[in-house]
């Protein structure tokens, strides 16, 4: 984000903090794709993602009076979305266990074409993401979909850059295995 947009955003947020709720529409409009994408890719369900993304904007608005511009609004919002996604996932179902991951690694070479017709690549991508442990999925979404640098991701997740790189490494390996299994990638 360039400096001009940052200054503009600072003014908009100040206006919101002063009670001008209409100005918040600019913020929502600007970051709706970010919030919705993160929620959608984390949860794999468009309807729930829509609810979670909207709840995140409402939570951010409620907490806006405490926002002190120490970080970017987008980073703060992303951390809210991810927290809500984690809460939802905890209440929904467990992620793929370590044993299942090992099994995927073993079997991927044995049946490369079995699921070649699994559907659109986007669907296959979501299924593969759904199969990743939550902390791997978070890093890959922020790094390769939102194209954030590791420093920004570190601020959002509160995890060191070195640890994030390890997660990204393992996440990519596992994602590749899951995509191969679905027949989307060779």
């Amino acid at each position, binding site marked *: 984000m360039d400096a001009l947009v940052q200054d503009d955003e600072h003014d908009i947020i100040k206006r919101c903090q002063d*009670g001008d*709720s*209409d100005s*918040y*529409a600019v913020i*929502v*409009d600007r970051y*709706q*794709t970010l*919030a*919705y*994408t993160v929620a*959608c*890719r984390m949860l794999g369900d*468009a309807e729930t*993602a*829509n609810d979670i*993304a*909207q709840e995140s*904007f*409402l939570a951010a*608005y*409620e907490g806006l009076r405490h926002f002190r511009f120490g970080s970017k609004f987008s980073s703060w919002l992303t951390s809210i979305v991810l927290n809500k996604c984690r809460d939802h996932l905890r209440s929904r179902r467990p992620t793929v266990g370590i044993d299942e991951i090992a099994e995927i690694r073993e079997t991927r070479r044995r049946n490369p074409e079995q699921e070649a017709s699994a559907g659109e*690549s*986007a669907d296959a*991508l979501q299924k593969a993401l759904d199969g990743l442990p939550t902390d791997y999925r978070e890093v*890959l*979404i922020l*790094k*390769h*979909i939102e*194209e954030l640098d*590791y420093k920004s991701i570190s601020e959002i997740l509160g995890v060191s850059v070195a640890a994030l*790189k390890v997660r*990204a*490494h393992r996440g*990519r*390996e596992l*994602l*590749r295995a899951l*995509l*191969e299994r679905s027949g*989307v*990638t*060779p």
Partner: protein
Amino acid sequence: MKKDITNIHRLLDGDAAGEKEAIIRQIQDDPVLRKEFDDLSAAVELLEQEGRMQPPLAFTASVMRKLPSPAESLAGRLKRFLFGSRVLRWNMAAALAIVLLTVVTTILMMKQLTHLDPNSVSPAFPSGEQAAMVRLTFVAPDARNVAVAGNFNKWRTDSHVMTRENGTWTITLPLKPGVYTYMFIVDNKQWVTDPHAETYRDDGFGYQNAVLKVAI
């Protein structure tokens, strides 16, 4: 081999700036590494190309509708209370109670009105007490002037002068509920009892005062 695969991830992370050429050469020279690189790159490209999702068209509007209302001022709340539209909930019991109250109130008002002179209305005194407008009439075609005096004006003969209308003298008096006695004074000298009074009372001087009962 493990170190070589780590280098692939460094490339994908954009962390191999100084060694990029050497790592790429190494990957190209090794079929296994090349396969690893191609597969991982394909997965990353899929994320980058297909990862973004478009929110529903009404997303912003939906969020804005759910925002809490800003704190309303006292004047704003009063204005909304007085002029804001509202839905009234009712049931048959409440409706019947309102109808009954209206009927009883109407009957009571009609009953009170029957006690008044047909020409009377009911304004209020400054104190807020209701008054009846009582119209007195006196036929005296030959009189030059006629006034009315009574206990309502401390028997003053010059404060309530009547108006002539074709030989009939009239005056309308605002009177609180009560019992009043009065007489007409013709041409400033002759005291005459109202011949149309409902009742009379001796005045102690050999005359009879007319008696007027006012009720609301």
